[in-house]
């Protein structure tokens, strides 16, 4: 198979992945409407008592568990039973991910280098990592209620770049011939994936908070799929945990980028447009972390910061790459 054939096959595979992500998006959307329906059926919100049992200890003596029962929100308990749609959608995500991975690997082989050195490839690898982090996190937390958000974003970003950013393979320009291309860009993209999850959670957190405050002021709240997902506090905690992982990766990105710039451009920092935006994003997320620790800012305001941070990440990737002048002219578009 020639290089050109491999490139074409990669393109085809990526398009297949986009189609399957779109399918997953539809099924996740069905899942949400199903959840909403379930929420209505469970009209009388179940308040389950969770009993912390000290049982199960193989003590030879008698165990008298003392009941201590914090009241749990219905939503903290396992979500709707038999989540058929969510299961199908997640399987589709896996399938799409495998195609996506295949297409990315083929692109890398065809180019004879890592597949992230122009906009089309950044988008391809970036969305691959978002999918990977989402699917990976599912092993630990049931975040399938974020599936619509994630798959929708994947379709938009990957589809958009396949339409708008596609370029044939070109050799690397000299400054990119560096091991830092592998490390710096990869870590930055992984950070983006965690920020994406956090952003989705913060959006849902804001939605939950609105419902909570409506409820608190005695207003009627419609049942919706929000009844089947964790409450605002828990969403916020999760968002925070993903953000700090992303923040640490981003800090590393910043440092690695400076080391690279010091080799390639003759200074470690020069307020080049891309450097400015990397810094702005870093400061925004530092602000988010502080906001979480500041009275009056935890909750809605910090959630907004998480969303703004991710908007800045997307802006950095799209608008800054395409329209801002600077040394990082690697979009491959002209």
């Amino acid at each position, binding site marked *: 198979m020639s290089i050109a054939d491999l490139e074409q096959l990669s393109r085809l595979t990526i398009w297949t992945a986009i189609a399957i992500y779109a399918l997953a998006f539809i099924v996740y959307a069905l899942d949400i409407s199903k959840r909403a329906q379930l929420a209505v059926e469970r009209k009388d919100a179940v308040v389950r008592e969770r009993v912390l049992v000290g049982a199960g200890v*193989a003590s*030879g003596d008698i165990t008298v568990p*003392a009941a*201590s029962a914090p009241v749990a929100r219905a939503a903290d308990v396992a979500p709707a039973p038999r989540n058929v749609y969510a299961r199908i959608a997640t399987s589709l995500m896996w399938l799409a991910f495998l195609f996506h991975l295949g297409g990315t690997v083929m692109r890398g082989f065809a180019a004879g280098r890592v597949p992230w050195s122009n906009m089309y490839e950044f988008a391809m690898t970036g969305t691959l990592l978002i999918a990977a982090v989402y699917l990976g996190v599912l092993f630990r937390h049931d975040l399938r209620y974020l599936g619509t958000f994630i798959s929708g974003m994947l379709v938009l970003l990957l589809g958009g770049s396949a339409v708008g950013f596609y370029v*044939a393979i070109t*050799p690397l320009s000299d400054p990119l011939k560096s091991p830092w291309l592998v490390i710096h860009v990869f870590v930055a993209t992984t950070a983006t994936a965690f920020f994406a999850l956090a952003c989705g959670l913060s959006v849902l957190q804001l939605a939950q908070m609105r419902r909570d405050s409506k409820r608190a002021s005695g207003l009627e709240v419609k049942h919706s799929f929000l009844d089947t997902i964790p409450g605002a506090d828990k969403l916020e905690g999760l968002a925070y945990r993903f953000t700090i992982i992303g923040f640490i990766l981003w800090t590393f990105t910043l440092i690695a980028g400076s080391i690279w710039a010091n080799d390639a451009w003759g200074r470690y920092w020069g*307020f080049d447009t891309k450097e400015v935006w990397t810094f702005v994003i870093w*400061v925004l997320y530092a602000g988010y972390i502080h906001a979480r620790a500041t009275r009056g800012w935890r909750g809605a305001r910090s959630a907004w910061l998480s969303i703004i941070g991710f908007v800045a990440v997307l802006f950095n990737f799209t608008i800054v790459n395409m329209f801002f002048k600077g040394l990082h002219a690697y979009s491959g578009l002209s």
Partner: protein
Amino acid sequence: MSTSPSKPRPPRGETNDPLRPADHIDADPNAVTSPALGVVGWLRWAWRLLTSMRTALVLLLVLAIAAIPGSIFPQRSADPNGVVQWQTDNPDLFPVLDGIQLFDVYTSVWFSAIYLLLFISLVGCIIPRIKHHAKALRSRPPRTPARLARLEDHRIDEFEVPGDAATQAEHAVDVAAGQLRGAGYRVERYDGRGSFSVSAERGYARETGNLLFHISLVGVLVSVGLGGGLSYTGQTVIVEGSTFVNQLVDYTQMTKGQFVNESALSPYAMTLDSFDVKYQPYDPTGPASGQAGDFAANMTIRASDGQKSEQSIRVNHPLSLGGDRVYLLGNGYAPQITVRNAAGEVVFSGKVPFLPQNNATMTSLGVVKVTDGMPEQLGLLGFFYPTAAKLETGALTSVYPALIAPTLTFNVYEGDLGINDGSPKNVYTLDTSSMKQLNGGDTGVKAIELTPGGTAQLPNGLGSVTFENADPNKTPSPLANQSTDFSKSVPRYVSIQMRHDPTAIFVLSFAILALGGLLLALFIPRRRLWVRATPKDGRVVLEYAGLARGEDPQLGAAVTAFADKHQSTLSAADSKVD
């Protein structure tokens, strides 16, 4: 574990809790922070305000916003030509925006004010915390709370025990204390009032990490600041075959901090032996046609100690030389040009660096200035086309960056070059304001057009100009055309940057420390665990409870896991006794 809304507020203000500003989420909300009377009171209030969480947060957000204009408007530091261009495009708006320093954002008054305030707030915030933390590191875990069951993460088990309940209870707490110590907790026994208990705390490294992070940020800022004064950046151009000596006069440009001693330049020299570059093959439809890469400036270096060596400078691979880092920044063609006057005397001879106008085709612009030996000063404005082709209009262009059909054209100007007043002039530009154009353009006289080895007469019988072939063995015969190998006919030059920044290594070290501190601060949980055993009617009541100090999603699981482990150790010991 779920968070219930009526979470009992844990005891505050204990000496080994990390010190936090008053508006920290965990701080006592009742602490009053309105200005007290008197100057001192007012100052203290202002200081508390400046070092509060909210101020730090707002300053961070303002800093983020303030950095953005520098990515929208061209900056003098990064893109001086862009600033000039912007000024030409927007002559009316320029002075207004320049007045508010939008073209020098990162050295502007307002940007500096923001980061200085943040810096002061940062220092003011961490100093008391360091003092406090140093004390906390030496303190003991606090007394076991009387009502452990009020804590959110707790567990109570009751056991029937053989023998004396009090002995068994004490033994259980001994075991727990040992296990906690083994798990990295600092432990303290609090026995009495009919029960035995151990109080344990771990994760002091969380606050250590947090402080390390913030201190390292100060370190980064200070190092960068010092670097500004101690560093210099110089640029120069070296043509193939010529030598650069590291002294001020050999630089075309030099920016240096106010503490740099010019006479301390390290005495090294380098000669450009050759320059390598590879171009992607010509392919008018392909995206990579003519893309250049694998640049290498092959140098002979004479180091300060007189040692000679041959080394290449490549992109991403700067050379370390006498405390400087030497970078390959750019390259171009330097056609060798000879100008003779009407009497045939050489009035100018040299390899003239031409500035590339377009990297894909290497169409380049250069200037020859003849100061003496002519009736009046002459300026030759030249265009160089490595692979010349004619456009439909008849004008020349270059279609490929390598030397396939090199062509040089000249427009000749006569008059005053404007260099006699001694003010420095850019070697790449010709100030034609007091000169008269003799050929090209609208003059009606054809521009001079030369190929390597060719000579042409200057207008008005002023003399001649020759485009020397640097590879004379291959001087083209008039009959040869396409097959002539011009690949070595024009010398190359490189532009080189020397950078000396003794603080860069400190910036890097502090940055890495900051990252390390961040990992500790964000991933090490600070938590307290208590185990209390109370003998009661021949039974033992075992209570376990945990308290998070800061973000700690795993606390509930940790309490359960510890209780399980503790009880299984106890029962294992029991069964042995049995």
